[in-house]
């Protein structure tokens, strides 16, 4: 991290909106790399639609609370910053909850207590503390968007996989198992599928999450082997401690050039 020209991932300018969004989506994906916000990740991902709703609600809260906290961070005294953050975050969560209750009551019922629990979501606190309270409003806003979208993508993936394997549906459309919507011989073949119920239960969330993290690590390792600069990948992620040696090495070689 030397030199005046600090470059973020993909060679984008550090703290530019694009860099922040990319950072949240892939480089520091909150679910698959930083591994924070596990509670909603494991609890509400029984279906893809639940995942996407939860993700978007969190994105909304994350982006706006990040912006407001960045705006106020000079005013908030350091000693009471946590309660102050909670007040900001809780206000936006209340907005989301009232909106969901009014316009999507069925989804609100499905997500239940996890919507109010966004207040204590580790991702939102983490970004407020680690990023928004040290940066300007615009990058903080886009940091929230990026992190939120990264979270949304990850938990929608988990939800989709669990839904397909565990009940044979994708976004509530029956594609596998009895009553499949696929017609003809292919449909007949697909209708033989037996849903693996454990995947819509709690244990299934761990299986799918573990597989996704393993895939992510594999992709990162392959990129490191090809000599791409992956030194920015997974900083602070506990799952990348093992292969931390490789990316660092790559970076040093580049600096030597």
């Amino acid at each position, binding site marked *: 991290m030397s030199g005046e020209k600090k470059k973020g991932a993909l060679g984008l300018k550090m703290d530019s909106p694009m860099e922040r969004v990319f950072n949240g989506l892939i480089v520091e994906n909150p679910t698959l790399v930083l591994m924070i916000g596990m509670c909603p990740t494991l609890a509400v991902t029984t279906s893809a639609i639940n995942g996407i709703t939860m993700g978007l609600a969190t994105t909304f809260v994350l982006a706006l609370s990040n912006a407001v906290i960045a705006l106020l961070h000079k005013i908030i005294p350091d000693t009471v910053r946590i309660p102050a953050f909670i007040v900001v975050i809780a206000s936006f969560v209340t907005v989301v909850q009232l909106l969901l209750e009014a316009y999507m009551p069925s989804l609100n019922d499905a997500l239940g207590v996890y919507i109010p629990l966004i207040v204590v979501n580790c991702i939102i606190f983490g970004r407020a503390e680690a990023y928004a309270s040290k940066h300007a409003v615009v990058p903080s806003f886009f940091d929230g968007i990026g992190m939120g979208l990264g979270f949304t993508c990850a938990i929608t993936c988990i939800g989709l996989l669990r839904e397909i394997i565990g009940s044979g549906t994708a976004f509530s459309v029956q594609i596998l198992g009895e009553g499949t919507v696929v017609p003809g011989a292919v449909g007949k073949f697909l209708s033989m599928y037996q849903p693996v*119920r454990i995947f819509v239960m709690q244990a299934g969330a761990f299986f799918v999450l573990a597989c996704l993290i393993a895939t992510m690590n594999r992709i990162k390792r392959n990129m490191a082997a090809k000599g791409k600069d992956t030194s920015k990948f997974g900083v602070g992620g506990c799952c990348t401690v093992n292969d931390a040696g490789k990316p660092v090495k790559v970076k040093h070689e580049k600096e030597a050039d």
Partner: protein
Amino acid sequence: MSDMMKVSSNPHVRSKVTTSNIMMWVVISLLPAAGYGVYNFGVDALIILLISVASTVLTELIYEKCMHKPVTIGDYSAVVTGLLLGMNLPSTVPWWLPVIGGVFAILVVKMVFGGLGQNFMNPALGARCFLLISFPALMTNFVTDTYTGATPLAALKNGESVTVMDMIIGRTGGTIGETSMIAIVIGACILIMLGIIDLKIPGSYIVSFVIFLCLFGGHGIDPVYISAQLAGGGLMLGAFFMATDYVTSPITNRGKYIYGIFLGVMTGIFRCFGSSAEGVSYAIILGNLLVPLIERYTMPRAFGIRKEAKKA
């Protein structure tokens, strides 16, 4: 030659006992129960057992080839896992169920954690519970050509009468390997006589289970009820062949008793107060999870070392 040239520090203990030796004896002692299952349920049962063994062994082979690790299928532990898994399935299951179970047992429960000796849970039981939760209807379908009613344990739970003699010989419905108490005990005797297992875990398991039934079973000390509970379901198979798994049971003597008593009480709770008639497999995998804790608190004191005084 290579044996002669080995240099190592003393003491030089020589023993013919190897992992593959032990595992082969476990396979042999499982054969009476498996054989009775095939006799009882017909060719279907044999096919399920073969598919199950083939899928565990092949999974281990393919995983180790892909990961460039030494191939360990020669130690027969995968065969034991496959055989136990097959004996824990009803004979009516479709062919792909043992395949999924075998892959899950080896890949998820055993290999991902580092192979034999590192698995925190009995692979065969882990896979059985995985299948039981995932496909409850298939896994509890005990209706065959010869047996149509519920299993004797389920009948017992509903308050119907059962024939204890049939249950001891094994002329009842159930999973392939669990029905015949006699065949299982014959196999267990082989293992006990060879010193491969001892009676600490199975003994304390069965005794504590019986005491629990007398206290909370709701039938008091009723010999018929208790012997039916002992002969029915997976209790015998679980107590002698799965609770005694070296990797997933405590190695300390006191730990073995604690572990056995825990299994007995948990099985009693599941059978008496649970929604299902059976509870052996869940009790054992719960016990497996407690093993590191039990070993930690029953670690024997090393010679010459005083117990650490409690800090005030």
